[in-house]
């Protein structure tokens, strides 16, 4: 029966043979459906898992590393932080509002399933250029979706990244990171233990939404007919999630759950098999007990539904009535759908008939693993040889003005003001600075987060690019006073069946791992998103890292970009090059060129730079890392935010616009001693006046720079952004 059926479900013949071998018989319909989704790339990490072992998390402050719903680190005094990052790329392309909204909902469940209250979200989002109406529609929709869900669910959004570049035109990236806080005794895991304990399904009712989302949306490539996939997208209900959060936190507080697991991709199949496998148990599941929203659903549909806002709690029989009372208080559904059993078999029944009986671990843990062929791209040497042709003389002021008008470098207030970023009275440094900083109320502890990606450099050199984003992220949190403490990564790549893509992936993993080791930062979790490919074109390799920084005590007055004043001095700290243009904003925006090889981070110096920034954050009013747009744009950003001009005289224009890594600016009162002797540090100028003055390389009125920078995104977005016309059906268009 299944020869063609397993292929329809996206399973290879070999994988099907493995299922037959595991079961020692052909799978029944519902079983095959469960394997097809649980063994999909999205759920099983089958192409990446081998390489992810490279990441280290064996540091004393790591409580839980990769493998749980979220990584957990120790902050001292009984406080734990849970963090996680995940992508919702494909759903957001199909339906931007709901795709982004359910991305937020999903990541929050990953956090509160650990016992932590979610306290903040960051979004790293990438689109094609805003000159195209479709990209405006996607960008506007994603931002609205994040705002609509995040604000209503009552978790502040503290920033993230926004980038616009051509490779994302047909494949936007939406990566969401969340942070939660808890006291140590609140920590819960997914491991279901205790024969006779009861599995209770909490939250929204189950419908047909999102069926096969993991295998269809997240594990295959796109073509122009993607609109037809719309029914697979789930619809989020932030109100239901808010009630679910409060109910679950009350359950933890009352110590009523043994284990808990959220329902994400592959729904009940995944939650039951993962929690049973983690506890080394079996589970009997009765689908007749699942609260349904639609009639006549089949067993496979109920098992695979990706209806949002659901959790599976494992509860001792004596606590069931108390759990149901908490659910009743918060007006959420609760149904006893299963019982833990000895052995390791997941048995599913419906209408009194057994529809599946499989080893839980075979679904959740023992899926296929591939070591796909990898090959260095044949054109890489040519790309490296194609260094940018730099002009002899450059009007730096004019170039800066062009760069400030680029939506990827401009003011992001249009985005961040749509997000509630002030809830919980914890936000000390809000979105729009290098890293965002929040406090743990009632303590002296501060947590900073920065999310960073750099697809252009990662395309030119995945290994160096990956190292650079880790170091940039570390410097961003350091600029708030928080030392780098733990990292999560979201690895967005094209089709892993192409050897060049696999090579990019392996190089990236090595780069992230090496940089984290140099910084002594554990990698506590991550997500891999493959098949970011539309019509055969892969995105640039886009690892996005989310760095958590930690400080205790927090600086009394952390650096901000708006605290520079007339007469203060500008200092540049870190090694200079004047030659690092490959993948720079200047090359992209002004020269329209992508080629050459970016410079590498030097770990020892990079570490020293991060350490100095962390120290200086307690002493100086302004710290700002030098990144996109180089020194000139970094100076302009301080001027704009502080409302004061500056004069900077450099010997060459290249020093003003190149993007050599591991550098930052400090603005200090005149005559201050920065106490830096082990790495380069020099005074480059003074604040004052109403011009941003680059000496012989031009000068720019502060008012002009400010207006251009503020208007860049609004002027592109604040007009009609109607739905793009539906793409016509292509004759003979076929999916691979």
């Amino acid at each position, binding site marked *: 029966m299944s020869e063609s059926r397993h292929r329809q479900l996206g399973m290879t013949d070999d994988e099907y043979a493995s299922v037959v071998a595991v079961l020692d018989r052909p799978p029944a319909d519902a079983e095959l459906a469960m394997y097809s989704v649980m063994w999909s790339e999205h759920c099983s990490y089958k192409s990446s898992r081998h390489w992810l072992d490279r990441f280290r998390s064996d540091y004393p402050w790591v409580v839980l590393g990769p493998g749980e719903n979220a990584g957990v680190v120790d902050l001292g005094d009984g406080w734990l932080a849970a963090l996680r990052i995940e992508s919702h790329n494909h759903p957001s392309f199909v339906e931007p509002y709901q795709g982004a909204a359910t991305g937020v909902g999903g990541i929050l469940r990953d956090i509160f399933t650990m016992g932590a209250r979610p306290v903040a979200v960051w979004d790293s989002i990438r689109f094609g250029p805003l000159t195209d109406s479709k990209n405006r529609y996607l960008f506007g929709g994603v931002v*609205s979706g994040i*705002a*609509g869900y995040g*604000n*209503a669910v*009552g978790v502040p959004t503290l920033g993230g990244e926004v980038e616009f570049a051509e490779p994302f035109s047909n494949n936007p990236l939406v990566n969401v990171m969340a942070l939660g806080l808890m006291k140590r005794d609140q920590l819960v895991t997914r491991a279901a233990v205790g024969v006779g304990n009861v599995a209770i399904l909490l939250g929204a009712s189950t419908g047909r939404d999102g069926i096969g989302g993991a295998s269809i949306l997240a594990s295959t490539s796109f073509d122009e007919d993607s609109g037809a996939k719309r029914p697979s997208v789930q619809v989020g*209900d*932030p*109100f*239901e999630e*808010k*009630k679910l959060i*409060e109910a679950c936190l009350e359950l933890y507080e009352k110590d009523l759950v043994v284990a808990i697991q959220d329902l994400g991709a592959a729904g009940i199949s995944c939650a039951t098999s993962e929690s049973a496998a983690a506890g080394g148990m079996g589970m009997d599941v009765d689908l007749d007990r699942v609260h349904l929203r639609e009639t006549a659903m089949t067993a496979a549909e109920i098992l695979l539904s990706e209806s949002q806002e659901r959790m599976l709690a494992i509860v001792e029989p004596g606590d069931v009535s108390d759990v149901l009372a908490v659910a009743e*208080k*918060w*007006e959420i559904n609760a149904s006893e759908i299963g019982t833990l059993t000895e052995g390791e078999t997941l048995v599913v029944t419906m209408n009194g008939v057994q529809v599946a009986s499989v080893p839980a671990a075979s679904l959740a843990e023992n899926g296929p693993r591939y070591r796909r062929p990898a090959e260095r791209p044949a054109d890489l040497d040519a790309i490296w040889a194609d260094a940018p042709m730099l002009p002899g003389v450059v009007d730096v002021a004019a170039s800066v003005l062009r760069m400030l008008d680029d939506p990827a470098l401009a003011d992001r*207030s249009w985005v*961040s*003001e*749509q*997000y*509630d*970023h*002030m*809830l*919980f*009275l914890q*936000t*000390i440094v*809000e979105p729009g600075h290098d890293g965002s900083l929040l*406090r743990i*109320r009632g303590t002296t502890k501060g947590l900073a987060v920065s999310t960073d990606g750099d697809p252009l450099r990662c395309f030119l050199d995945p290994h160096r690019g990956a190292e650079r984003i880790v170091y940039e992220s570390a410097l961003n949190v350091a600029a708030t006073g928080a030392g780098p403490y733990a990292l999560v990564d979201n690895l967005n790549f094209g089709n892993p069946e192409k050897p060049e893509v696999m090579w990019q992936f392996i190089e990236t993993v090595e780069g992230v791992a090496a940089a984290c080791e140099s910084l002594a930062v554990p990698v506590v979790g991550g997500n891999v998103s493959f098949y970011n490919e539309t019509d055969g074109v892969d995105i640039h390799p886009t690892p996005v890292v989310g760095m958590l920084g930690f400080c205790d005590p927090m600086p009394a007055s952390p650096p901000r970009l708006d605290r520079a004043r007339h007469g203060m001095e500008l200092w540049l700290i870190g090694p200079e090059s004047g030659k690092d243009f490959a993948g720079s904003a200047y090359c992209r925006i002004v020269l329209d060129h992508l080629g050459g090889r970016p410079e590498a981070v030097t770990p020892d110096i990079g570490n020293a730079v991060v350490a100095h920034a962390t120290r200086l954050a307690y002493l100086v009013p302004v710290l700002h890392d030098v990144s996109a747009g180089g020194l000139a744009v970094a100076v302009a950003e301080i001027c704009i935010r502080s409302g004061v001009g500056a004069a900077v005289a450099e010997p060459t224009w290249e020093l003003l616009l190149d993007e050599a890594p591991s550098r930052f600016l400090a603005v200090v009162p005149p005559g201050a001693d920065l106490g830096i002797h082990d790495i380069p540090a020099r005074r480059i100028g003074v604040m004052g006046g109403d011009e941003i003055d680059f000496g012989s390389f031009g000068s720019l009125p502060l008012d002009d720079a400010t207006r251009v920078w503020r208007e860049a995104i609004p002027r592109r977005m*604040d007009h009609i952004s109607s739905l793009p016309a539906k793409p016509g059906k292509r004759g003979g268009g076929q999916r691979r």
Partner: protein
Amino acid sequence: MRTAVIVFPGSNCEHDVAHVLRSLGAEPELVFHRDRDLTGADGIVLPGGFAHGDYLRTGAIARFSPVMAEVERHAAAGTPVIGICNGFQILTEAGLLPGAMVANRGLRFICRHVLVRVESTDSVLTRNADVGDVLRIPLNSYQGNFVLDTDRLAALEERGGVLLRYVDEKGHPDHTINGTTIAGIANAAGNVAGVMPHPERASERLLGSSDGLVLLESFVASMAKLPA
């Protein structure tokens, strides 16, 4: 001063406002929306958030929560009652304050600091402030655009019911933020007040502003029945 902070499903600012009230000497207690007993409350706060998901209309479903009958009884008896953001929306839906809220002019959620000028001190929310004071307080709403028909609006202004008005940096009334200049109002007795921006978010310099304290201090002073 026992202060009932009402928690609707979907409320999210209840802990924040309780934290600041506590720091001002009040004794806030979270009261779940299904409770019917507010005996002994010296004041009531309807906090911000998204009660009942803001489904149907903001505040529309919340006004039918069991606790609201008690809130109405207390309001009629002169107990200080304030609604912040979503709480303001609920008070208008409940008819305890005039008017209604529609979407922001730009059709986008707005979360940022705005300037508001004190227009009247005849209320539990503004009694400690001075007319003309300009406060920097965060706004955080999508449906924050206060509307009322012309006649009733004139009557509201006539009786000094407008407590706070959005102004620009030069101090001129500013309707460009979300479509209205009205940021806060009170009932005729002055004991029921609604404010769209969040005073509790402007309660410490470290958070960017402490200008909201004067409003919450007014509320605490009203609960303590201090002479104005």
